């Protein structure tokens, strides 16, 4: 499959994420949109890695060139999981304090 499809898919996912972050007020949904952007980038990373590895295989068999990005993505997912737990914990605390997950309630930080 051509790389363009992957790029367009990632762009779409990323844009949905951006628009979601900018428009929604529910903290959970904003959080999910951030994850969406993160995973769009992950997907793009894997797609490029695969493309590069495939090209390298043409010239030399048994090469490992280009697969490091796929390994890298695993690390990103692990870190993202940790980040999600921290983020969700913050949202839970927010809900306990305000009984709401509306981010506009957070303007108490203003002063």
């Amino acid at each position: 499959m051509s790389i363009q499809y992957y790029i367009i898919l990632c762009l779409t996912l990323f844009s949905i994420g951006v628009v979601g972050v900018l428009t929604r007020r529910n903290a959970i949904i904003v959080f999910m949109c951030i994850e969406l952007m993160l995973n769009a980038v992950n997907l793009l990373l894997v797609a490029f890695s695969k493309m590069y590895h495939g090209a390298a295989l043409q010239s030399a068999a048994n090469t490992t060139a280009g697969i490091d990005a796929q390994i890298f993505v695993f690390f990103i997912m692990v870190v993202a999981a940790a980040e999600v737990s921290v983020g969700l914990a913050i949202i839970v605390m927010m809900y306990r304090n305000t009984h709401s997950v509306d981010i506009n309630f957070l303007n108490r930080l203003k002063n």
Partner: protein
Amino acid sequence: MKIIIGFIVLWPLVGFLLNGLGRNIWSKKTIATQATGYIFASFVFSLIAFWNVQEQGAIVVHYFDFINTSTIKIPFDFRVDALSSLFLLVITGVGTLIHLYSSAYMHEESAPHYARYFAYLNLFIFSMLLLVLGDNYVIMFIGWEGVGLCSYLLIGYWFTNTTYNNAAKKAFIMNRIGDLGFLLAIFWLIVKLGTVSYGEVLTAESLAKLSSTDITAITLLLFVGAMGKSAQIPLYTWLPDAMAGPTPVSALIHAATMVTAGIYMITRTNIFYTHSEIAQTVVAIIGISTALLAATIAIKQNDIKKVLAYSTVSQLGYMFLGLGVGAYSGAVFHVITHAFFKALLFLAAGSVIHAMHHEQDIRKMGGLKSKLPITHLTFLIGCIAIAGVPPFSGFFSKDEILAAAYAKNPIYWFLGVVGAAMTAFYMFRLYATTFLGQFRGTEAQASHLHESPISMTLPLIILAVLSAVGGAMGVPEILGGHHWLSHHLSSIIGAEHALHLSHTTEWILMGTSVAIALVALLIAIGKYSKQADGEPQTALGKFLYNKWLVDELYENAIVQPLNRLAGFLKDVVEKNVIDGVVNGTGKLVQYGARQTRLMQSGQVGYYILFMVLSIVLLFLIWFNDLAITRFLHNLIQ
């Protein structure tokens, strides 16, 4: 030799430091002994240096490098040669006598002020010695500035008097104007030749490197410096005001130091002047104009020191006339004889003022002949010497300048003789009004009249002897002498114009000038021995009495416009423009801060929006830097 020459300069500095720092410790006797002693030590060392120069020629000693870079090297060297050794003797010799005289003249001052006075006096001599001894123009400039500073300090010695302080400031500022010319000349030399040492600058090779424009510019700029220091038109007005200082200071400024600096500098640079016809003409014309202007003013002044001050300006004019017509040794000769008789006249005037309890108006004197016999006799000798009556010293030096002036252009000679006649007239007007006729002062003054103590009369007697016989060092051939001075200076003065005057012409010139001076002298004695000058009646008299209104002219043409400009800058430019910029910056920051603060709304959505927009902007710039550069480039063009 290196140490001896160094100590000529160091003795006065030691005296300055000791008296300046220990002014609360020493008694007045110690202070005066120290100050006079160090100058005398300097005089003795100068004598040793002088004899060495007589035997082995010029001596240049190196101490250290004053400025040392890849492009320019200015060593701290001293040069003792025929010219500077003569000046050394005059400065330290006359300086010693003035110190001795001051020790009695200033006895009314309290000890700390007495010490301050002598410290300044020593510093003055130190600066002047530095000026004369330096082997390059930069060292000369250090001394040059030093005497300017000391003249300021000494003229304003009685600093509680505002008039005196103003006179001091005037002297300083007038000198600064001249100094600028000198400084520019030094820069010009550095740019064109890369050196300022006499040994390298004053040579035929460096003359060949300079265009005639360069030489004219350098000589004229140096002359601007000399105008300030040696009180020539248009910068002479400080010298008469310098009378605010104590009388021995006037003697020091007018005779031994300071005003002779300009003559010294031009004589030092004589080979440049000889190569610039324009500069010579300018020097001669300024010189003779100053001589005549000051002489006319002196005729109508009634302050004993003012008359002497204008006579100094006038005599300096003669010296510059001599320099302008190429009679360099004549000018130096006149410097030396003038140092003798002008120091004598000032010190004698000081003795009179001392006896009269600080009365300076000659209309209130008269008949002092019998009360102050020594002062009277010495003052008379000084007057005869300055009037140019043979065989006193002034006759020889003035005659040499006038003869050289005649050889150059008879008009100079004619004007010079007119000036000489005026000199004889105003000096004997001063003498007759002060010493002859009836006493016109108050009863109290009459009862206190007394001859000054020995420490004041001794310098007078020595200077009177020197004024009388000082001409012996330059007796011209026509009178049977062989002019020792001009032979002595022949190594310094490259191409002096030989006088192509026949002996008959010389006799006629000499006879004419002496006859005219004698006539003027007798008229003055006849007119003023009975009564003093009243208030000026005629318009011309008032004009001269008011010193040609030159001070008023400067006041209206320069000082007032400058003050108005300063006022305009203060009230308009400062208040509106500069304050506006400063306050505007503050206001802009405050306004900007107020507006930017609104961005911190607390709405998380807005923060994220700003973040995204900023990231987009960053990416745009990152990927389009080339396009942006091109856009800006086109914008500029």
